[in-house]
Each structure stands twice: as structure tokens, then as C-alpha cells.
């Protein structure tokens, strides 16, 4: 059997719906790791079934909980609105129609304390499984099930081999690697999923490479 018994007896989660509650919490929680910077307001644009049924399934509370850093099994999830008030995090829910998007998709716009916004789009696929489909304008396919490095870099020759040699030097095996860029020679995005947790020093070493703009490490997923 190629399916874990804990995918059948699981996930352990806050109800009522694995796709509309647990998946929503995970989407915002992972988006928070991706944004990796303080923010004070989030706009949640809801598409498809998310837009139709979000109140009855607590999708709204789950999204806010995730944005506050709560996991899908956190019993405080139901009181996330009150917790957001204490944390001075504001939010709003807006309907949107996205092209070619899965039924349960949310576009999250994080308003950063430092100014500007960071945008993450993702879908809840059922059984609390998620797929992040866009990060700050870069299309991607990221399911957040293993340790991950998110890198934005200048699209120049040899940059990828510099990145992979850093990982090889500390014996981290790359499981999946995805590259995308907006235009040739402009800013590019690189997502690397690894078999082992990624130590913080990897971020420090990579950040010293001049063509690399930003490195984020996601070890909790």
C-alpha cells in the first residue's frame, strides 16, 4: 500500500471540513511561512466553493487562524477572530473569480509592516491537502509537505549551480526543484524541496551570493 494509514485515519484537525476548514488553515499557515515578514492586514479573496460556503464551514476563522500562525489542529482556531483583535491583525473577505482555478481557492494579500504587499494564491484539494499555485506573481506548484527553500534570485547563468553546490556541501538531498521567472534576465524564483530539514546556516550562506535577493526556509509544514 502506497498510502499511509495516517492519511486514512487523519488528519487530526478542527472541524467541520477537511477541505474548507483544515485545508484553509493550512493554506494561510503556509502562506505566513512564505511571506516571512510582519504584516498587519490580510485580504482574503475567495473563489468558487470557498466563496459560496465559507461561513458555514468556518473557512473564514480557519484562514485568520492560519495567518496568526495556528495549525489545523489548534483548538483556539474557533476563536481566531478574537485573537486577531488582540494581535492587532485586521482582515477582510472578498469574493473573486479566478481563471482556471480549483473550486476551493484563496488569494491572500498580506499588507506588510515594512510597506508593500506579498501575495500568495493556493487551493485546498481535500483531506487537508493543499497546493500553493502562485507566490508574488510567480506561478508554482508547491504542496508544502517537505522542508523547503524559497529563493528569489537574478536570472543569470550559473546561479542554480551555485545554489545546489551549497546544498550538496552540507549533504542535503534535493527532492524537487522548480524554477520560474517573469522575463529572461529578470527576477526568478526557485523552490527547492529537500528530504532533510534545512539548517538556518543555509539561508545565511545563500544570502551572501550577490545575485540572490531573498531566501526563506520552511521547515514546519
Amino acid at each position, binding site marked *: *500500500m*502506497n*498510502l*499511509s*494509514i*495516517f*492519511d*486514512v*485515519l*487523519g*488528519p*487530526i*484537525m*478542527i*472541524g*467541520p*471540513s*477537511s477541505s474548507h*476548514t*483544515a485545508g484553509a488553515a493550512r493554506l494561510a499557515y503556509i502562506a505566513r511561512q512564505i511571506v516571512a515578514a510582519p504584516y498587519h492586514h490580510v485580504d482574503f479573496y475567495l473563489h468558487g466553493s470557498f466563496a459560496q*460556503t465559507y*461561513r*458555514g*464551514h*468556518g473557512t473564514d*476563522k480557519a484562514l485568520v487562524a492560519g495567518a496568526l500562525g495556528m495549525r489545523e*489542529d489548534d*483548538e483556539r*482556531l*474557533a476563536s481566531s477572530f478574537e485573537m486577531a483583535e488582540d494581535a492587532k491583525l485586521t482582515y477582510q473577505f472578498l469574493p473573486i473569480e479566478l481563471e482556471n482555478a480549483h473550486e476551493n481557492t484563496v488569494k491572500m494579500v498580506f499588507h506588510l509592516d515594512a510597506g508593500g504587499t506579498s501575495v500568495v494564491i493556493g487551493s485546498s484539494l*481535500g*483531506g*487537508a491537502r493543499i497546493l500553493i499555485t502562485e507566490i508574488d506573481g510567480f506561478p508554482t506548484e508547491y504542496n508544502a509537505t517537505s522542508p523547503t527553500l524559497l529563493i528569489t534570485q537574478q536570472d543569470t547563468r550559473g546561479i542554480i549551480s551555485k545554489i545546489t553546490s551549497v546544498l550538496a556541501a552540507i549533504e542535503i538531498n534535493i527532492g524537487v526543484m522548480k524554477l520560474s521567472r517573469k522575463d529572461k534576465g529578470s527576477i526568478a524564483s526557485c523552490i527547492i524541496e529537500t528530504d532533510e530539514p534545512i539548517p538556518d546556516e543555509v539561508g545565511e550562506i545563500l544570502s551572501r551570493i550577490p545575485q540572490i535577493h531573498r531566501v526563506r526556509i520552511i521547515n514546519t509544514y
Partner: protein
Amino acid sequence: MYTTTAELWAEAQKKEVPLSQIVLESEMKLTGVSQKVVYDRLRATFAVMKKAAENALEHPLHTVGSLIEGVAQTQYQYSQSGKTLCGPMLNLMMARAFSCSETNAAMGRICAAPTAGASGIVPAVILTVAEHLQATEEIVLRGLLVSSGIGAVITRNATVSGAEGGCQAECGVAAAMASAAAVEMSGGNGEQAMHAAAFALVNIMGLICDPIAGLVQMPCAQRNASQAMNAMLSADFALAGQKCPIPLDEVIDAMYKTGKMLPMQLRETALGGIAATPTGKRLATQIFTT
């Protein structure tokens, strides 16, 4: 490695071990962890199940729309009244299933088994059988293994999504998982466990998913309680020596195909069944305009 229930049973026969052992070994191989790690995780899973099954017995939980508020407490108090038709044990089991559903609807913590909407059946059955048999923890964990083995095959070869297969794919599958667990926990053999799971699915073949207002409450909670009963009586069919003439894998396939034949209105859209009754529609309007 098994991909069908027939292969699961064949492996168990070859090695002369219970089904749960094959499921355990498969999990250890797939995830590369020790038996202790699997057992620890099963213990944690069961602890969540037990808490959800007890959570709403003594007091009602608030849910959006309040369609099932207090159902667990009502059944629990009745189970102790001495006047029940099905007896105190089965009424307590229904109350436990209700409690999981109420906890789920009230945004409490549950373990999807195999889904959140059907999360009351496996816990209610395993807790009740364990109590009835005064079973050891080992037997409880074995029950969880058997149920997840059957559930894994169905997830892989068919569906456990109400939107895809109707309620039979959620609560029906949970009943099949729970009945197989009940048989092994009671000392039945692997073949009997497979017959029990087949009977459970046969008993529920074609059941639609028709949630009022689209909420995971009514009839979901009642289906959790009634499918826990289905699991128990199916286990008793098999333990009595009844044999389902259609093999479990074929029954699973029939369930899957039946689900695909169901029109969209009967698959979690709240456009058919009791959701589409005048009262069902009125309740939906009331809930979402207040």
C-alpha cells in the same frame, strides 16, 4: 505490498498473521519507521478520537445553525434510562458517534476517519467494542490498523469523498472500516473481517450526500450513528458465519461506480435529498440570513 483487499487477505494467510499485522508492516515499510513510532502515533490518534466521542455527552456544543446541538447528550441520557430498544451499549455507541459529529460541527478537534464528516463511526465502534470485550490497548490499536488498511484500499481504488461518491463513500466506508476492526478485535479471522466490511458497504450501497444548508450536521450526525450500527450488525453477520457472495473488492468497485452514477444534486451540493425539501431550504435561508 497490497493494493486490494484480496491481496491484503492473501498476505495475511500466507504469513498466518491477522490483517492488522500486514497493515502494520506495510506502514513501517512505506514510512521507514519502527513499530513503536506507528503505535505511538496510533495512540495519539485514538486519544483524539476518544476525546471527541466523549466531548458532547454531558453538555451540548454550539454549532453554526444549531441543527444538531445536543444530540449526543440526548442519546447519552437515554442510553442510561433502562428503557431503550437497542440496549444501553448500542445507545451509548450512538451517543459517541453523535458526540464526534457535534464536536466536528462545533469546530472542535477530531480525527478524520476517513473524513471529518464521517469521523464518528470508527471511534464509536472501536470504543464500544473495546469496552464490551474489556480489550487491551494492543487490541484497540490492532482494530485501528485493520480499519485503516481497509480504508486505504478504498481511498486508493475508489473514493472517500462525498462530493464524488455520496454518503456511501464517507459514512459507508467508515462503517466498512469499523466493521472489519470489530471483527478482528472480537477474535474473528481475516476472512470474516472482509465479509463484514463487504456487508457494511452492501447495506449502504447508493446512499446520497444531502446536507441541509451544506453544513456538516444534518443528516451527517444521524448517519454517523446509524452507520456505527451498520458496522456492528455487519460484524455480527460475519462473526455468525454469514458470507457475502460478492468479494469485498468488487463491492468497493460497485460503490465507486454507483457514486459516479449519482447526479451532482445528490453529491454534497445540498441540491437534493432532504436538503432540497421545503423545510430544508427554509432552514438554509434562515441560517444564512441571521
